[in-house]
């Protein structure tokens, strides 16, 4: 029965769905958690949930990079579409990786610093980077 037919494309499809579901869980925490921590930092509110989110965000982003695996399976499933879209979007698509790196370090800065202005700035930069990745 589909998609468990045992053929290679069906196996890839199952693998894609599993890796994508994992990716969505982690990356949702990162994007929405960054926004939530930024709002609470702007409000200067002492919020234990925002504190915990800020501590967990770099780990969640590292775990969320399992999206690479989902993308790897996706390119096997839809080779022509995936490669063509990548080439058409070109440098903008290539900018996703630097944006993720900048966002990753910004999350570490937001976690480590005790200066509220630096924390706000770092969270704002991270939010812009992750929104760019989600849009792209």
């Amino acid at each position, binding site marked *: 029965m589909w998609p468990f037919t045992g053929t290679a494309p069906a196996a890839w499809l199952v693998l894609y769905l599993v890796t994508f579901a994992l990716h969505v869980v982690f990356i949702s925490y990162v*994007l929405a958690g960054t926004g939530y921590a930024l709002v609470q930092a702007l409000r200067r509110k002492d919020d*234990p949930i925002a504190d915990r989110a800020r501590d967990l965000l770099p780990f969640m982003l590292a775990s969320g990079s399992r999206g690479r695996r989902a993308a790897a399976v996706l390119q096997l499933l839809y080779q022509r579409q995936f490669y063509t*879209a990548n080439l058409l979007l070109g440098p903008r698509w290539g900018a996703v990786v630097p944006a993720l790196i900048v966002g990753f370090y910004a999350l570490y800065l937001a976690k480590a610093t005790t200066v509220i202005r630096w924390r706000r700035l770092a969270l704002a930069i991270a939010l812009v980077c992750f929104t760019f990745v989600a849009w792209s």
Partner: protein
Amino acid sequence: MSELHLVMQDQPAWRAMYAAGDRFYAQAGVLPRLLLWLGAMASLFATLAAWWAAPEDRAASR
């Protein structure tokens, strides 16, 4: 990854994009799709954050 997925699906637009050298898909479908994802992300974050938080932390966050 919203725009990439839409470009993948819109095969008739490939030639025009390539000919024009466009790096932006800029179709109306991108924004609602992105907003839907952002809404789902907020709900998922709220669920996880509330699940992991102690009851007193939940009260303090209000």
